[in-house]
Protein backbone atom coordinates (compact mmCIF):
# COMPACT_ATOMS: atom_id res chain seq x y z
CA UNK A 1 0.00 0.00 0.00
CA UNK A 2 1.30 3.41 -0.98
CA UNK A 3 -0.28 6.68 0.16
CA UNK A 4 0.66 10.22 -0.77
CA UNK A 5 1.31 12.29 2.36
CA UNK A 6 2.44 15.53 0.76
CA UNK A 7 3.07 16.85 -2.71
CA UNK A 8 5.87 19.37 -3.24
CA UNK A 9 5.11 20.83 0.19
CA UNK A 10 6.72 24.18 1.04
CA UNK A 11 7.97 24.59 -2.51
CA UNK A 12 10.25 21.53 -2.34
CA UNK A 13 10.18 19.37 -5.45
CA UNK A 14 9.61 16.20 -3.47
CA UNK A 15 6.69 13.79 -3.22
CA UNK A 16 6.32 12.10 0.18
CA UNK A 17 4.58 8.74 0.63
CA UNK A 18 3.81 6.20 3.33
CA UNK A 19 4.63 2.73 2.06
CA UNK A 20 3.60 -0.53 3.74
CA UNK A 21 4.60 -3.75 2.09
CA UNK A 22 6.38 -7.05 2.35
CA UNK A 23 9.70 -5.25 2.68
CA UNK A 24 8.50 -3.25 5.65
CA UNK A 25 7.06 0.16 6.42
CA UNK A 26 8.74 3.26 5.01
CA UNK A 27 8.50 6.95 4.56
CA UNK A 28 9.28 7.32 0.87
CA UNK A 29 10.51 10.54 -0.70
CA UNK A 30 10.68 10.80 -4.47
CA UNK A 31 12.07 13.48 -6.72
CA UNK A 32 12.43 13.79 -10.47
CA UNK A 33 14.21 17.16 -10.56
CA UNK A 34 17.74 18.30 -9.78
CA UNK A 35 16.74 20.60 -6.87
CA UNK A 36 14.62 17.84 -5.30
CA UNK A 37 17.36 15.25 -5.78
CA UNK A 38 19.88 17.54 -4.09
CA UNK A 39 17.61 17.70 -1.04
CA UNK A 40 17.28 13.92 -0.97
CA UNK A 41 21.04 13.50 -1.18
CA UNK A 42 21.40 15.89 1.76
CA UNK A 43 18.71 13.96 3.59
CA UNK A 44 20.48 10.62 3.31
CA UNK A 45 23.76 12.22 4.40
CA UNK A 46 21.89 13.64 7.39
CA UNK A 47 20.37 10.31 8.34
CA UNK A 48 23.71 8.57 8.10
CA UNK A 49 25.34 11.21 10.29
CA UNK A 50 22.46 10.98 12.80
CA UNK A 51 22.67 7.19 12.95
CA UNK A 52 26.42 7.36 13.42
CA UNK A 53 25.97 9.79 16.34
CA UNK A 54 23.33 7.56 17.92
CA UNK A 55 25.59 4.54 17.43
CA UNK A 56 22.95 2.64 15.44
CA UNK A 57 24.90 2.32 12.19
CA UNK A 58 26.12 -1.15 13.15
CA UNK A 59 22.56 -2.44 13.07
CA UNK A 60 22.17 -1.44 9.39
CA UNK A 61 20.97 1.85 8.04
CA UNK A 62 17.26 2.54 7.97
CA UNK A 63 17.62 4.55 4.73
CA UNK A 64 18.01 3.44 1.15
CA UNK A 65 18.47 5.63 -1.88
CA UNK A 66 17.76 4.25 -5.34
CA UNK A 67 17.59 5.81 -8.77
CA UNK A 68 15.83 4.53 -11.82
CA UNK A 69 15.89 6.74 -14.87
CA UNK A 70 15.24 10.32 -13.72
CA UNK A 71 13.52 9.26 -10.53
CA UNK A 72 15.39 9.35 -7.21
CA UNK A 73 13.70 7.45 -4.38
CA UNK A 74 14.66 7.55 -0.72
CA UNK A 75 13.08 5.01 1.63
CA UNK A 76 13.41 5.75 5.34
CA UNK A 77 12.34 3.29 8.03
CA UNK A 78 8.92 4.37 9.36
CA UNK A 79 8.98 5.80 12.87
CA UNK A 80 5.69 5.44 14.72
CA UNK A 81 4.95 8.09 17.32
CA UNK A 82 3.59 11.54 17.94
CA UNK A 83 4.73 14.85 16.56
CA UNK A 84 4.76 18.04 18.57
CA UNK A 85 1.97 20.52 17.94
CA UNK A 86 4.27 23.41 17.12
CA UNK A 87 1.46 25.83 16.29
CA UNK A 88 0.33 25.78 19.95
CA UNK A 89 3.41 27.74 20.94
CA UNK A 90 6.12 27.47 23.53
CA UNK A 91 4.08 27.32 26.75
CA UNK A 92 2.03 24.35 25.51
CA UNK A 93 5.18 22.55 24.33
CA UNK A 94 7.48 23.04 27.33
CA UNK A 95 8.13 19.33 27.89
CA UNK A 96 8.56 18.72 24.16
CA UNK A 97 11.16 21.48 23.88
CA UNK A 98 13.00 20.21 26.97
CA UNK A 99 13.25 16.69 25.55
CA UNK A 100 14.21 17.97 22.10
CA UNK A 101 17.04 20.05 23.53
CA UNK A 102 18.27 17.16 25.67
CA UNK A 103 18.30 14.98 22.55
CA UNK A 104 20.13 17.71 20.66
CA UNK A 105 22.82 17.81 23.37
CA UNK A 106 23.15 14.05 23.14
CA UNK A 107 23.51 13.97 19.35
CA UNK A 108 25.49 17.09 18.50
CA UNK A 109 29.17 17.30 19.41
CA UNK A 110 30.25 19.92 21.91
CA UNK A 111 32.41 21.95 19.59
CA UNK A 112 32.92 25.63 19.88
CA UNK A 113 32.51 28.11 17.06
CA UNK A 114 31.64 27.36 13.47
CA UNK A 115 31.89 24.04 11.65
CA UNK A 116 29.11 22.24 13.51
CA UNK A 117 26.73 19.94 11.64
CA UNK A 118 23.40 21.52 10.84
CA UNK A 119 19.91 20.02 10.54
CA UNK A 120 18.45 23.19 9.08
CA UNK A 121 14.78 22.54 9.87
CA UNK A 122 14.85 21.51 13.51
CA UNK A 123 11.20 22.12 14.19
CA UNK A 124 8.77 20.36 16.52
CA UNK A 125 7.08 19.20 13.33
CA UNK A 126 10.26 17.29 12.51
CA UNK A 127 10.52 15.50 15.83
CA UNK A 128 8.75 12.27 16.65
CA UNK A 129 8.36 11.06 20.22
CA UNK A 130 7.63 7.45 21.13
CA UNK A 131 8.47 4.96 23.86
CA UNK A 132 12.11 4.83 22.74
CA UNK A 133 12.55 8.59 22.97
CA UNK A 134 12.84 11.50 20.57
CA UNK A 135 13.66 11.01 16.89
CA UNK A 136 14.72 13.72 14.46
CA UNK A 137 13.37 13.42 10.92
CA UNK A 138 13.50 15.46 7.68
CA UNK A 139 17.21 16.00 7.08
CA UNK A 140 16.76 17.71 3.70
CA UNK A 141 18.75 20.78 4.74
CA UNK A 142 21.54 18.85 6.43
CA UNK A 143 25.10 20.06 6.20
CA UNK A 144 27.96 18.15 7.85
CA UNK A 145 29.68 21.43 8.66
CA UNK A 146 29.31 25.17 8.37
CA UNK A 147 26.71 25.35 11.10
CA UNK A 148 27.08 26.95 14.49
CA UNK A 149 26.85 24.96 17.73
CA UNK A 150 23.39 25.38 19.21
CA UNK A 151 21.86 26.82 16.05
CA UNK A 152 19.23 24.13 15.53
CA UNK A 153 18.14 24.04 19.16
CA UNK A 154 17.87 27.83 19.31
CA UNK A 155 15.92 27.74 16.05
CA UNK A 156 13.45 25.24 17.53
CA UNK A 157 13.02 27.45 20.57
CA UNK A 158 12.22 30.64 18.68
CA UNK A 159 10.16 28.98 15.97
CA UNK A 160 7.90 27.43 18.61
CA UNK A 161 7.76 30.79 20.36
CA UNK A 162 6.72 32.54 17.14
CA UNK A 163 3.81 30.19 16.53
CA UNK A 164 2.37 30.90 19.98
CA UNK A 165 2.80 34.67 19.94
CA UNK A 166 0.20 35.57 17.34
CA UNK A 167 -0.31 39.34 17.43
CA UNK A 168 1.44 39.72 20.80
CA UNK A 169 4.59 41.79 21.01
CA UNK A 170 5.95 40.89 24.45
CA UNK A 171 6.87 37.52 25.90
CA UNK A 172 4.72 36.10 28.68
CA UNK A 173 6.49 35.15 31.89
CA UNK A 174 6.24 31.40 31.31
CA UNK A 175 7.66 31.84 27.80
CA UNK A 176 10.58 33.82 29.17
CA UNK A 177 11.20 31.05 31.68
CA UNK A 178 11.31 28.37 28.99
CA UNK A 179 13.64 30.43 26.80
CA UNK A 180 16.05 30.98 29.70
CA UNK A 181 15.88 27.33 30.80
CA UNK A 182 16.65 26.17 27.26
CA UNK A 183 19.54 28.53 26.70
CA UNK A 184 21.01 27.60 30.09
CA UNK A 185 20.73 23.87 29.31
CA UNK A 186 22.55 24.38 26.02
CA UNK A 187 25.19 26.54 27.64
CA UNK A 188 25.76 24.11 30.51
CA UNK A 189 26.26 21.31 27.97
CA UNK A 190 28.65 23.46 25.88
CA UNK A 191 26.18 23.45 22.96
CA UNK A 192 25.67 27.19 22.69
CA UNK A 193 27.98 29.20 20.46
CA UNK A 194 28.91 32.68 21.60
CA UNK A 195 26.57 34.66 19.27
CA UNK A 196 23.53 32.91 20.77
CA UNK A 197 24.50 33.93 24.30
CA UNK A 198 24.48 37.66 23.69
CA UNK A 199 21.55 38.19 21.35
CA UNK A 200 20.14 34.79 20.44
CA UNK A 201 17.23 35.78 18.21
CA UNK A 202 19.05 38.54 16.37
CA UNK A 203 22.04 36.33 15.67
CA UNK A 204 19.86 33.37 14.73
CA UNK A 205 18.13 35.50 12.09
CA UNK A 206 21.42 36.92 10.90
CA UNK A 207 22.89 33.43 10.55
CA UNK A 208 19.97 32.27 8.39
CA UNK A 209 20.05 35.35 6.18
CA UNK A 210 23.78 35.06 5.61
CA UNK A 211 23.68 31.35 4.72
CA UNK A 212 21.65 31.09 1.54
CA UNK A 213 23.71 28.00 0.78
CA UNK A 214 21.69 26.03 3.37
CA UNK A 215 18.16 27.26 2.63
CA UNK A 216 18.58 28.26 -1.04
CA UNK A 217 15.32 28.74 -2.88
CA UNK A 218 13.29 28.90 0.33
CA UNK A 219 15.27 31.89 1.57
CA UNK A 220 15.12 33.63 -1.79
CA UNK A 221 11.49 32.99 -2.65
CA UNK A 222 9.53 32.28 0.54
CA UNK A 223 11.49 33.53 3.56
CA UNK A 224 8.19 33.71 5.46
CA UNK A 225 8.29 29.89 5.56
CA UNK A 226 11.20 30.27 7.97
CA UNK A 227 9.03 31.52 10.84
CA UNK A 228 11.81 33.13 12.89
CA UNK A 229 12.33 35.60 10.04
CA UNK A 230 8.76 36.80 10.61
CA UNK A 231 9.63 38.52 13.90
CA UNK A 232 9.98 42.26 13.32
CA UNK A 233 13.29 43.97 14.10
CA UNK A 234 11.68 45.68 17.11
CA UNK A 235 10.25 42.40 18.38
CA UNK A 236 13.65 40.79 17.96
CA UNK A 237 15.41 43.48 19.98
CA UNK A 238 12.70 43.45 22.65
CA UNK A 239 12.89 39.68 23.02
CA UNK A 240 16.71 39.65 23.18
CA UNK A 241 16.68 42.50 25.70
CA UNK A 242 14.11 40.70 27.84
CA UNK A 243 16.30 37.58 27.81
CA UNK A 244 19.36 39.57 28.81
CA UNK A 245 17.49 41.20 31.71
CA UNK A 246 16.33 37.78 32.92
CA UNK A 247 19.83 36.35 32.65
CA UNK A 248 21.29 39.25 34.67
CA UNK A 249 18.81 38.53 37.46
Amino acid at each position, binding site marked *: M*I*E*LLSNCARGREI*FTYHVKGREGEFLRKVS*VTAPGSTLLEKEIAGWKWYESRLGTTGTGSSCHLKRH*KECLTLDIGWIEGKKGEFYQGLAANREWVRQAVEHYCRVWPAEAGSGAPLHGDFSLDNLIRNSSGVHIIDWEHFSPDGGCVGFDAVYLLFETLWFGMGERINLEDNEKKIVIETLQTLDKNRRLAEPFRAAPLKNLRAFIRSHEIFWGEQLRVTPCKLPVLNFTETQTDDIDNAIQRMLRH
Partner: protein
Amino acid sequence: MTTPSSFDFAEELTRRFGCEEGIYRAEPSPGYWSNLNTDENKELMEALENKPAREAIREKFPALEEVIYSLKRQAGLELLDLTGEETCIDYGCMWGALTIPLAQRTRFVLGVDQTMDSLRFLKARARESRCDNVALLNADLKSMPLLSRKADIAVVNGVLEWIPESGTVELKKFYGQRTVRTYQGNPRDHQKSFLQRVHENLTPGGKLYLAIENRYAYEMFLGVPDPHSNLRFTSIAPRKVADWISRIKLGRAYVNWLYSFGDLEQLLKDAGFSAIDSYLCFPDYRFPQKILSTANSLEDFQSALPDKPFLKWKVRRLLENILFRKLKLKGLAPSIIAIART
Protein backbone atom coordinates in the same frame (compact mmCIF):
# COMPACT_ATOMS: atom_id res chain seq x y z
CA MET B 1 10.75 9.56 -31.50
CA THR B 2 10.86 5.88 -30.70
CA THR B 3 13.80 3.92 -29.38
CA PRO B 4 15.00 0.43 -30.26
CA SER B 5 13.60 -0.80 -26.94
CA SER B 6 10.12 0.22 -28.04
CA PHE B 7 10.53 -1.30 -31.48
CA ASP B 8 7.68 -3.81 -31.06
CA PHE B 9 5.20 -1.04 -30.47
CA ALA B 10 6.64 1.22 -33.14
CA GLU B 11 6.59 -1.57 -35.72
CA GLU B 12 2.87 -2.19 -35.19
CA LEU B 13 2.03 1.51 -35.24
CA THR B 14 3.99 2.05 -38.45
CA ARG B 15 2.41 -0.97 -40.10
CA ARG B 16 -1.18 -0.22 -39.14
CA PHE B 17 -1.49 3.56 -39.09
CA GLY B 18 -0.57 6.48 -41.27
CA CYS B 19 1.96 8.88 -39.90
CA GLU B 20 1.73 12.63 -40.19
CA GLU B 21 4.29 15.03 -38.67
CA GLY B 22 5.66 12.12 -36.63
CA ILE B 23 2.21 11.34 -35.15
CA TYR B 24 0.38 8.11 -35.99
CA ARG B 25 -3.22 8.57 -37.14
CA ALA B 26 -5.99 6.03 -36.75
CA GLU B 27 -9.28 5.86 -38.63
CA PRO B 28 -12.05 6.86 -38.34
CA SER B 29 -11.12 10.49 -38.14
CA PRO B 30 -11.40 11.47 -34.47
CA GLY B 31 -13.22 14.43 -32.95
CA TYR B 32 -11.84 17.36 -31.01
CA TRP B 33 -11.59 17.94 -27.26
CA SER B 34 -9.52 20.77 -25.86
CA ASN B 35 -9.52 23.50 -23.24
CA LEU B 36 -8.58 25.72 -26.18
CA ASN B 37 -10.86 26.63 -29.07
CA THR B 38 -9.70 25.62 -32.54
CA ASP B 39 -8.55 29.16 -33.37
CA GLU B 40 -6.64 29.39 -30.07
CA ASN B 41 -4.95 26.09 -30.83
CA LYS B 42 -4.00 27.46 -34.25
CA GLU B 43 -2.39 30.43 -32.54
CA LEU B 44 -0.49 28.06 -30.22
CA MET B 45 0.72 25.97 -33.16
CA GLU B 46 2.06 29.10 -34.85
CA ALA B 47 3.91 30.07 -31.70
CA LEU B 48 5.38 26.55 -31.52
CA GLU B 49 7.05 27.06 -34.89
CA ASN B 50 9.64 29.38 -33.42
CA LYS B 51 9.45 28.89 -29.66
CA PRO B 52 9.94 26.03 -27.20
CA ALA B 53 6.64 24.51 -26.08
CA ARG B 54 6.69 25.92 -22.55
CA GLU B 55 7.57 29.39 -23.72
CA ALA B 56 4.79 29.25 -26.34
CA ILE B 57 2.14 28.29 -23.78
CA ARG B 58 3.42 30.87 -21.30
CA GLU B 59 3.20 33.58 -23.92
CA LYS B 60 -0.16 32.65 -25.40
CA PHE B 61 -2.09 31.02 -22.56
CA PRO B 62 -0.22 31.62 -19.29
CA ALA B 63 -3.03 30.19 -17.14
CA LEU B 64 -2.38 26.78 -18.71
CA GLU B 65 1.32 26.59 -17.85
CA GLU B 66 0.64 25.28 -14.34
CA VAL B 67 -2.00 22.85 -15.65
CA ILE B 68 0.41 21.35 -18.16
CA TYR B 69 3.77 21.53 -16.39
CA SER B 70 3.11 21.40 -12.65
CA LEU B 71 5.24 18.73 -11.00
CA LYS B 72 2.37 18.06 -8.62
CA ARG B 73 0.32 16.38 -11.32
CA GLN B 74 2.46 13.25 -11.39
CA ALA B 75 2.39 12.45 -7.66
CA GLY B 76 -0.17 9.65 -8.09
CA LEU B 77 2.02 7.65 -10.47
CA GLU B 78 3.93 6.22 -7.50
CA LEU B 79 0.85 4.13 -6.71
CA LEU B 80 1.77 2.06 -9.77
CA ASP B 81 4.98 0.92 -8.05
CA LEU B 82 6.93 1.24 -11.33
CA THR B 83 10.17 -0.61 -11.95
CA GLY B 84 11.30 1.46 -14.94
CA GLU B 85 10.84 -1.41 -17.42
CA GLU B 86 7.17 -0.90 -18.24
CA THR B 87 5.50 0.00 -21.51
CA CYS B 88 2.55 2.33 -21.01
CA ILE B 89 -0.44 3.77 -22.81
CA ASP B 90 -1.72 7.19 -21.69
CA TYR B 91 -5.32 7.46 -22.92
CA GLY B 92 -6.47 11.03 -23.52
CA CYS B 93 -2.95 12.29 -22.93
CA MET B 94 -3.62 15.86 -24.16
CA TRP B 95 -0.53 18.02 -23.55
CA GLY B 96 1.30 15.28 -21.67
CA ALA B 97 0.77 16.16 -18.01
CA LEU B 98 1.35 12.47 -17.22
CA THR B 99 2.88 11.27 -20.51
CA ILE B 100 6.18 13.02 -19.90
CA PRO B 101 6.50 11.99 -16.22
CA LEU B 102 5.68 8.41 -17.25
CA ALA B 103 8.30 8.54 -19.99
CA GLN B 104 10.82 9.72 -17.40
CA ARG B 105 10.03 6.72 -15.21
CA THR B 106 9.37 3.86 -17.65
CA ARG B 107 10.67 2.25 -20.83
CA PHE B 108 8.09 3.47 -23.33
CA VAL B 109 4.84 5.49 -23.48
CA LEU B 110 2.22 5.63 -26.19
CA GLY B 111 0.16 8.81 -25.83
CA VAL B 112 -3.29 8.62 -27.40
CA ASP B 113 -5.51 11.62 -27.98
CA GLN B 114 -8.20 12.66 -30.42
CA THR B 115 -6.98 16.25 -30.78
CA MET B 116 -4.15 16.55 -33.27
CA ASP B 117 -3.05 19.99 -32.01
CA SER B 118 -2.62 18.66 -28.46
CA LEU B 119 -0.40 15.91 -29.85
CA ARG B 120 1.64 18.40 -31.90
CA PHE B 121 2.29 20.32 -28.68
CA LEU B 122 3.16 17.11 -26.82
CA LYS B 123 5.51 16.03 -29.59
CA ALA B 124 7.45 19.29 -29.23
CA ARG B 125 7.38 18.97 -25.45
CA ALA B 126 8.68 15.38 -25.54
CA ARG B 127 11.51 16.38 -27.85
CA GLU B 128 12.49 19.30 -25.60
CA SER B 129 12.31 17.04 -22.51
CA ARG B 130 14.62 14.57 -24.30
CA CYS B 131 11.98 11.86 -23.97
CA ASP B 132 12.79 9.75 -27.00
CA ASN B 133 10.66 6.89 -25.66
CA VAL B 134 7.30 8.48 -26.49
CA ALA B 135 5.11 7.71 -29.51
CA LEU B 136 1.82 9.47 -30.22
CA LEU B 137 -1.38 8.16 -31.74
CA ASN B 138 -4.23 10.36 -32.91
CA ALA B 139 -7.35 8.26 -32.31
CA ASP B 140 -10.86 8.45 -30.96
CA LEU B 141 -10.79 6.69 -27.60
CA LYS B 142 -14.27 5.28 -28.20
CA SER B 143 -12.90 3.36 -31.16
CA MET B 144 -9.42 2.79 -29.75
CA PRO B 145 -7.67 0.13 -31.84
CA LEU B 146 -6.91 -3.24 -30.35
CA LEU B 147 -3.12 -3.55 -30.31
CA SER B 148 -1.30 -6.83 -30.65
CA ARG B 149 1.61 -5.44 -28.59
CA LYS B 150 0.25 -5.19 -25.04
CA ALA B 151 1.17 -2.55 -22.47
CA ASP B 152 2.04 -3.07 -18.81
CA ILE B 153 0.41 0.16 -17.67
CA ALA B 154 -2.68 2.09 -18.79
CA VAL B 155 -3.40 5.62 -17.60
CA VAL B 156 -6.92 7.06 -17.77
CA ASN B 157 -6.58 10.39 -16.02
CA GLY B 158 -9.66 12.61 -16.02
CA VAL B 159 -10.86 10.96 -19.20
CA LEU B 160 -13.53 8.36 -18.36
CA GLU B 161 -16.26 10.95 -17.75
CA TRP B 162 -15.67 12.45 -21.20
CA ILE B 163 -15.91 9.15 -23.08
CA PRO B 164 -19.68 9.43 -23.75
CA GLU B 165 -19.12 12.79 -25.48
CA SER B 166 -18.66 12.85 -29.22
CA GLY B 167 -17.75 15.31 -31.93
CA THR B 168 -16.15 18.63 -31.11
CA VAL B 169 -15.78 19.85 -27.53
CA GLU B 170 -14.21 23.27 -27.30
CA LEU B 171 -14.38 23.49 -23.55
CA LYS B 172 -14.94 27.23 -23.32
CA LYS B 173 -17.92 26.96 -25.68
CA PHE B 174 -19.17 23.83 -23.94
CA TYR B 175 -18.77 24.28 -20.18
CA GLY B 176 -22.07 25.64 -18.89
CA GLN B 177 -23.00 26.77 -22.40
CA ARG B 178 -26.14 25.83 -24.25
CA THR B 179 -25.16 23.57 -27.14
CA VAL B 180 -27.78 21.27 -28.56
CA ARG B 181 -26.26 17.82 -29.05
CA THR B 182 -27.59 14.36 -29.55
CA TYR B 183 -26.11 11.23 -28.09
CA GLN B 184 -26.68 7.59 -28.68
CA GLY B 185 -26.63 4.85 -26.12
CA ASN B 186 -26.15 4.78 -22.38
CA PRO B 187 -23.09 6.68 -21.01
CA ARG B 188 -22.11 3.77 -18.79
CA ASP B 189 -22.12 1.39 -21.75
CA HIS B 190 -19.72 3.69 -23.64
CA GLN B 191 -17.46 3.92 -20.60
CA LYS B 192 -17.55 0.16 -20.07
CA SER B 193 -16.69 -0.55 -23.73
CA PHE B 194 -13.78 1.86 -23.53
CA LEU B 195 -12.49 0.23 -20.33
CA GLN B 196 -12.84 -3.20 -21.92
CA ARG B 197 -10.58 -2.05 -24.75
CA VAL B 198 -8.12 -0.61 -22.21
CA HIS B 199 -8.18 -4.01 -20.51
CA GLU B 200 -7.61 -5.82 -23.81
CA ASN B 201 -4.60 -3.65 -24.56
CA LEU B 202 -2.92 -4.59 -21.26
CA THR B 203 -0.66 -7.57 -20.53
CA PRO B 204 -1.90 -10.19 -18.05
CA GLY B 205 -1.12 -8.63 -14.65
CA GLY B 206 -0.96 -5.17 -16.23
CA LYS B 207 -2.17 -2.21 -14.21
CA LEU B 208 -4.65 0.56 -14.83
CA TYR B 209 -4.34 3.98 -13.17
CA LEU B 210 -7.74 5.65 -13.31
CA ALA B 211 -8.46 9.08 -11.81
CA ILE B 212 -11.86 10.76 -11.74
CA GLU B 213 -13.97 13.08 -9.60
CA ASN B 214 -16.17 11.34 -7.06
CA ARG B 215 -19.87 11.53 -7.94
CA TYR B 216 -20.65 12.08 -4.24
CA ALA B 217 -17.81 14.48 -3.43
CA TYR B 218 -18.91 16.56 -0.45
CA GLU B 219 -18.58 19.77 -2.51
CA MET B 220 -21.31 18.52 -4.83
CA PHE B 221 -23.76 18.56 -1.90
CA LEU B 222 -22.77 22.16 -1.15
CA GLY B 223 -23.84 23.27 -4.61
CA VAL B 224 -20.37 23.49 -6.16
CA PRO B 225 -21.00 23.16 -9.92
CA ASP B 226 -20.22 19.89 -11.65
CA PRO B 227 -16.75 20.46 -13.17
CA HIS B 228 -17.88 19.07 -16.52
CA SER B 229 -21.20 20.81 -17.14
CA ASN B 230 -21.11 23.74 -14.67
CA LEU B 231 -24.52 22.61 -13.40
CA ARG B 232 -25.23 22.32 -9.68
CA PHE B 233 -26.36 19.04 -8.11
CA THR B 234 -26.39 17.08 -11.40
CA SER B 235 -23.64 14.80 -10.15
CA ILE B 236 -25.50 13.70 -7.01
CA ALA B 237 -29.00 13.74 -8.50
CA PRO B 238 -30.50 10.53 -9.90
CA ARG B 239 -29.31 10.15 -13.51
CA LYS B 240 -32.78 10.83 -14.93
CA VAL B 241 -33.17 14.03 -12.93
CA ALA B 242 -29.67 15.19 -13.94
CA ASP B 243 -30.52 14.46 -17.54
CA TRP B 244 -33.72 16.47 -17.27
CA ILE B 245 -31.89 19.46 -15.68
CA SER B 246 -29.18 19.33 -18.36
CA ARG B 247 -31.68 19.18 -21.23
CA ILE B 248 -33.56 22.20 -19.87
CA LYS B 249 -30.49 24.32 -19.07
CA LEU B 250 -27.98 23.23 -21.72
CA GLY B 251 -30.13 21.63 -24.40
CA ARG B 252 -28.28 18.33 -24.22
CA ALA B 253 -28.38 15.10 -22.27
CA TYR B 254 -26.28 14.61 -19.13
CA VAL B 255 -23.61 12.16 -20.18
CA ASN B 256 -20.47 13.02 -18.18
CA TRP B 257 -21.23 10.33 -15.65
CA LEU B 258 -19.18 10.19 -12.48
CA TYR B 259 -19.26 7.32 -10.00
CA SER B 260 -19.17 6.54 -6.32
CA PHE B 261 -16.32 4.37 -5.01
CA GLY B 262 -18.51 1.24 -5.13
CA ASP B 263 -20.01 1.93 -8.54
CA LEU B 264 -16.61 2.67 -10.06
CA GLU B 265 -15.26 -0.63 -8.74
CA GLN B 266 -18.27 -2.42 -10.21
CA LEU B 267 -17.75 -0.72 -13.58
CA LEU B 268 -14.09 -1.79 -13.57
CA LYS B 269 -15.05 -5.36 -12.67
CA ASP B 270 -17.66 -5.39 -15.45
CA ALA B 271 -14.92 -4.30 -17.85
CA GLY B 272 -12.77 -7.25 -16.79
CA PHE B 273 -10.49 -5.75 -14.14
CA SER B 274 -9.81 -7.36 -10.78
CA ALA B 275 -7.84 -6.61 -7.59
CA ILE B 276 -8.98 -3.02 -7.49
CA ASP B 277 -7.43 -0.67 -4.93
CA SER B 278 -9.32 2.58 -4.51
CA TYR B 279 -7.89 5.73 -3.00
CA LEU B 280 -9.41 8.90 -1.58
CA CYS B 281 -7.84 11.88 -3.27
CA PHE B 282 -7.67 15.42 -1.82
CA PRO B 283 -8.29 18.16 -2.88
CA ASP B 284 -8.60 16.69 -6.41
CA TYR B 285 -6.91 14.13 -8.63
CA ARG B 286 -5.25 16.69 -10.91
CA PHE B 287 -3.15 18.35 -8.20
CA PRO B 288 -3.36 15.79 -5.39
CA GLN B 289 -2.04 16.77 -1.98
CA LYS B 290 -3.10 13.57 -0.24
CA ILE B 291 -3.94 10.17 -1.66
CA LEU B 292 -5.19 7.83 1.04
CA SER B 293 -6.14 4.18 0.90
CA THR B 294 -9.78 3.37 1.60
CA ALA B 295 -8.32 1.17 4.37
CA ASN B 296 -6.87 4.25 6.12
CA SER B 297 -8.56 4.90 9.47
CA LEU B 298 -8.33 8.69 8.87
CA GLU B 299 -7.38 9.12 12.56
CA ASP B 300 -4.63 11.55 11.56
CA PHE B 301 -6.46 13.15 8.65
CA GLN B 302 -5.82 16.84 8.16
CA SER B 303 -7.40 18.83 5.37
CA ALA B 304 -5.10 19.34 2.40
CA LEU B 305 -6.74 22.62 1.47
CA PRO B 306 -4.48 25.68 1.59
CA ASP B 307 -4.29 27.34 5.00
CA LYS B 308 -5.34 30.76 3.71
CA PRO B 309 -6.39 33.47 6.17
CA PHE B 310 -9.89 33.76 4.72
CA LEU B 311 -13.09 32.61 6.33
CA LYS B 312 -14.16 30.57 3.29
CA TRP B 313 -10.99 28.48 3.41
CA LYS B 314 -11.04 28.13 7.17
CA VAL B 315 -14.63 26.86 7.05
CA ARG B 316 -13.80 24.39 4.27
CA ARG B 317 -10.77 23.08 6.15
CA LEU B 318 -12.84 22.68 9.27
CA LEU B 319 -15.61 20.95 7.33
CA GLU B 320 -13.16 18.49 5.77
CA ASN B 321 -11.65 17.69 9.14
CA ILE B 322 -15.11 17.01 10.57
CA LEU B 323 -16.31 14.95 7.60
CA PHE B 324 -13.22 12.84 7.24
CA ARG B 325 -11.32 12.75 10.56
CA LYS B 326 -14.31 12.80 12.91
CA LEU B 327 -17.10 11.21 10.88
CA LYS B 328 -14.92 9.02 8.57
CA LEU B 329 -17.22 9.70 5.61
CA LYS B 330 -14.78 8.30 3.06
CA GLY B 331 -17.43 8.10 0.37
CA LEU B 332 -17.50 11.91 0.21
CA ALA B 333 -13.83 12.33 -0.81
CA PRO B 334 -13.40 14.83 -3.68
CA SER B 335 -11.76 12.47 -6.17
CA ILE B 336 -11.03 8.80 -6.65
CA ILE B 337 -7.91 7.10 -7.92
CA ALA B 338 -8.27 3.42 -8.70
CA ILE B 339 -5.42 1.03 -9.38
CA ALA B 340 -6.84 -2.06 -11.07
CA ARG B 341 -5.19 -5.16 -12.45
CA THR B 342 -6.15 -7.25 -15.45
